[in-house]
């Protein structure tokens, strides 16, 4: 059974379409990241789910119930805003208890719930402090606690960690994930940070220009990108344009590769992750190898990065330091593309731009 269903959700602002027919199925208890560059429509999509934007088309269902036009205050979803939007005239505890106060809960009950939630976000004892006296990380936790105060069906976060410094952000990512697992709450996070998405999510939804390109678990998005945009946006990749010449063979600049699962004919695009590219000294023959010259090399500690010029195209390869071939920049090399590591994508022309 599916908890949340987005069925062709669309948002138009005059002539501009911010979200093109987004369809998605989010099962109960999943941690979903909407990932994409700024202006890709991910925040608009989240705001439509929250009820803060009216969709121009499509439907939104939760547990089979249509809530497309339900006002935000009737949805009972908890949301953390990018600015956090803590109420400046209230203390931390009063902020958290605000939704209970609106529902007419007794003072003692409000206080009890605020203390419970502060405990949950590991910030006990600050209930009476004004929010202006809290640090960035503490405000973050108060905003999370407030969004969770009513035990919502859906927990929505809009770039929640972007205001924190790198170290705190890392710690909060882990904590947010642990909190989500403990509560088993369906969570949707908007982020432009692919590392954040990859490390936290059960389901990564990659968006660009108002469209969902791929919705899949992080490793699948990384290993089996649906198209060139996803391959390029998630991590680093080598994109090779090629033409299928014969059964199971594709001509690329600088040579020919033999791969399984190729379409019968036409142009294709290959994506190969740098860590899958194998670097060999020149002159050793083998399958799926292209000759090139080393243009740049640098040590990254755990690995060595090679930039190799193959027929005018730059190929990036990462190897372990002990596998480094004895070549200086300007020297000849050959690079191997193992068939299993080559992902065949639709050619560039089909990429929606």
């Amino acid at each position, binding site marked *: 059974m599916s908890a949340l269903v987005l069925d062709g959700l669309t948002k138009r602002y005059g002539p501009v379409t911010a979200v093109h027919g987004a369809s998605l199925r989010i099962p109960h208890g999943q941690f979903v990241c909407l990932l994409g560059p700024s202006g890709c429509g991910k925040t608009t999509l989240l705001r439509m789910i*929250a*009820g*803060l934007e009216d969709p121009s088309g499509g439907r939104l269902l939760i547990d089979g119930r249509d809530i497309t036009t339900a*006002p*935000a*205050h009737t*949805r*009972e*979803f*908890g*949301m953390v*805003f*990018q*600015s956090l*939007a*803590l*109420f*400046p*005239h209230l203390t931390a505890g009063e902020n958290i208890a*605000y*939704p209970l106060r*609106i*529902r007419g809960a007794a003072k003692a009950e409000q206080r009890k719930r605020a203390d419970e939630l502060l405990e949950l976000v590991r910030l006990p004892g600050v209930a009476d402090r*004004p929010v*202006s006296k809290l640090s960035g990380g503490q405000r973050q936790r108060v905003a999370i606690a*407030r*969004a969770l*105060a*009513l035990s919502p069906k859906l927990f*929505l976060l809009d770039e929640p960690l972007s205001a924190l410094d790198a170290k705190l952000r890392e710690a909060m990512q882990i904590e947010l994930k642990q909190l989500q697992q403990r509560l088993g709450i369906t969570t949707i996070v908007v982020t432009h940070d692919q590392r954040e998405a990859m490390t936290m999510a059960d389901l990564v939804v990659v968006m660009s220009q108002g469209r969902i390109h791929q919705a899949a678990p992080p490793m699948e998005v990384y290993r089996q990108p649906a198209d060139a945009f996803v391959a390029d946006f998630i991590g680093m990749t080598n994109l090779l344009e090629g033409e299928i010449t014969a059964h199971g063979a594709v001509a690329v600049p600088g040579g020919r590769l033999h791969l399984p699962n190729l379409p019968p004919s036409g142009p294709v695009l290959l994506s190969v992750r740098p860590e899958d590219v194998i670097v060999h000294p020149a002159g050793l023959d083998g399958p799926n190898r292209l000759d090139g010259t080393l243009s740049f090399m640098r040590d990254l500690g755990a690995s060595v990065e090679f930039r190799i010029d193959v027929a005018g195209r730059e190929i990036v390869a990462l190897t372990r330091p002990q596998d480094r071939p004895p070549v200086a920049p300007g020297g000849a090399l050959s690079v191997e593309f193992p068939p299993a590591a080559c992902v065949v994508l639709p050619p560039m022309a089909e990429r929606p731009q």
Partner: protein
Amino acid sequence: MIRRAPRGLAEHAPILFPALMLVVFFVIPFSLMIAVSVFRRVPGGFYEPDLVFANYERFLTAFFGGVMSFSLGLAALVAALAVGIAFPFTYRLVRLSRGAQIRWLVFLLSILSLSEVIIGFAWSTLLSRTAGITNLFVALGLMAEPQSLSPSFGALLAGLVYQAFPYTVLVLYPALARLDPYLEEAARTLGSSPLRAFFTVVVPALRNTIVATTIMVFVFALGSYLLPQLLGRPQHWTLSVLITDQAIYQSNMPFAAAMAVFLVLVSLALVGLALLAGRREETA
């Protein structure tokens, strides 16, 4: 930005001119007024130097008390109405597009540029029997025959609120423009209807701004002396009208001065309160 205190004559020079102006046009006249307020009136003539407090003693009469409480009550009502209308208006205004905001602000500034006399006569015409809006109501079948709505307390109140409204919007504008627009949305996701979010989050978050603005409009309304004469009946005349009346028509300068001193002190005390409220908001 230089943070240290200015030293020597040269560094104090930029404030010398305003300081001089303040002394010449405020401190000296106000001192003269205080002096006159304790002078003795000469019947049929003007006044002569003395040190009597008879003018201040007249504050204790029922007539003066009535005028004073009417003036304060009217100013309070105008302040409450002006802020009550201008606050939701400005809250909407800051969310409009830049172009629309500028058009509204220019329009409001143009109202501010109108003199009190023009506003007063415009309202008295608008509310008159011969040419007023009641003729429109009759044409629409809402009223049997046109009637005069001015002078009356309602007319006076409408005129004063109209005059104070643009001023109120301009004072509220910066604070509302700075308010995080997501506060209201956050309240909505937490279960408040838009109206409830406005009253439980937006209004309390700006409580001190509202208090400060109300006091400023109050002081502004307290000083009006033309509109009460144009739109009100004699029982609607404020302290300011009374001062004008005593000074110009009754030639009782000492009593007028005493009342003026009193009015200035009340105004200053209220402006002080407004500043105090504003400062507390900054530290919060």
